[in-house]
C-alpha cells in the first residue's frame, strides 16, 4: 500500500514545496472568501465591469509620468484606445441590432483593462528607451552614439519598466538618454 501511495506523496511534496503553488492556493482561498463573503461588493464589481463608460477611468495613469514627457504620450494613446473600444462596441451593437448583453460588455472591458496594462508598460519603455539610432533627436540631446543603445537606463531589467521612473529620480544625467 505504501509503495502504491509513494507517487502521490512525492507529487504532493513537490507541489507543496514550490512557493508559487502556495501563492496561487492563497489567492484562490482569498478570492473564494471574498466571493462568498459579500454579495453587495460582488454586485458592485459586476456593475463596474459592465459599465459602458469603463474606458473613462484610465486617464490618471498619465500622471505617472508628469514631467518627463510633458504628459503628451498618454492622452494620445488613451484617445486611440478609446476610439478602438467605442468602435468595437458600436459594431457589435449594429451586428446584434440593439442593446448588448452584459457579459459581452464585461468581456470587452476586461480586454480593455489588459490592453491598458500592456500600454502602461509600453509607454514606460517608450519614454526611457531610444528606438534606434538617432530616434532621440532634440536640441537638448543631439544625435549621438548614446542614442544607439536600446537598453534601459539605470541598469534596470527589461521587465521592470514600471520601476524606471522611480529610479530616474536618482539619475542625474537622464536627459542624455531621451
Amino acid at each position: 500500500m505504501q509503495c502504491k501511495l509513494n507517487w502521490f506523496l512525492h507529487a504532493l511534496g513537490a507541489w507543496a514545496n514550490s512557493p508559487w503553488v502556495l501563492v496561487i492556493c492563497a489567492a484562490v482561498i482569498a478570492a473564494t472568501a471574498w466571493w462568498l463573503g459579500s454579495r453587495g461588493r460582488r454586485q458592485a464589481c459586476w456593475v463596474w465591469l459592465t459599465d459602458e463608460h469603463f474606458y473613462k477611468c484610465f486617464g490618471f495613469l498619465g500622471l505617472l509620468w508628469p514631467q518627463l514627457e510633458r504628459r503628451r504620450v498618454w492622452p494620445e494613446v488613451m484617445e486611440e484606445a478609446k476610439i478602438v473600444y467605442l468602435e468595437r462596441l458600436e459594431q457589435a451593437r449594429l451586428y446584434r441590432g440593439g442593446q448588448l448583453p452584459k457579459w459581452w460588455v464585461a468581456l470587452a472591458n476586461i480586454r480593455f483593462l489588459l490592453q491598458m496594462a500592456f500600454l502602461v508598460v509600453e509607454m514606460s519603455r517608450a519614454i526611457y528607451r531610444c528606438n534606434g539610432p538617432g530616434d532621440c533627436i532634440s536640441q537638448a540631446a543631439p544625435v549621438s552614439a548614446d542614442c544607439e543603445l536600446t537598453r534601459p537606463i539605470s541598469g534596470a531589467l527589461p521587465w521592470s519598466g514600471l520601476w524606471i521612473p522611480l529610479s530616474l529620480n536618482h539619475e542625474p544625467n537622464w536627459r542624455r538618454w531621451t
Partner: protein
Amino acid sequence: MNETDKLTDVQMLFLEAIGADKVSGRQLREQLAKLGWRKSAPVFYQFAARLEDEKLIKGWYEQRTIAGQPVRERFYMLTAHGKQALVKTLHFYEERLRNNAGFLGGTPGYAM
C-alpha cells in the same frame, strides 16, 4: 549637408508614410506596420512627439463622436521643414548610390 538635417531610416519612413495630406495617428500606424515598422501605440506617439519637437511634422486633435461619445483623434501633417528634410535626405542617399566608389565590390552606380 548639415549633420542634423539627415534623417534616420525610421524617420524617413515616418515622413514618407504621412505623405502630402493629413492623416490620423491610427491610419499612420497601420500604414507604417504595412511598411515594416510595427510598434505599439506608446512607441509610435512618442516617436511622433519627438518629430513634432523637431518641427518636422505638425500634430493636432480633431473632435469626433463615436457611439454617442465625444473622442479626440490625433492627426498629423508634414511641415515645410519636414518636406525639405525628407527631400534633402533622399537626395543625399541618391547621391551616395550614384557616386559611390564601388565599396560593395561592384562598379560605381550599382543598383540595389
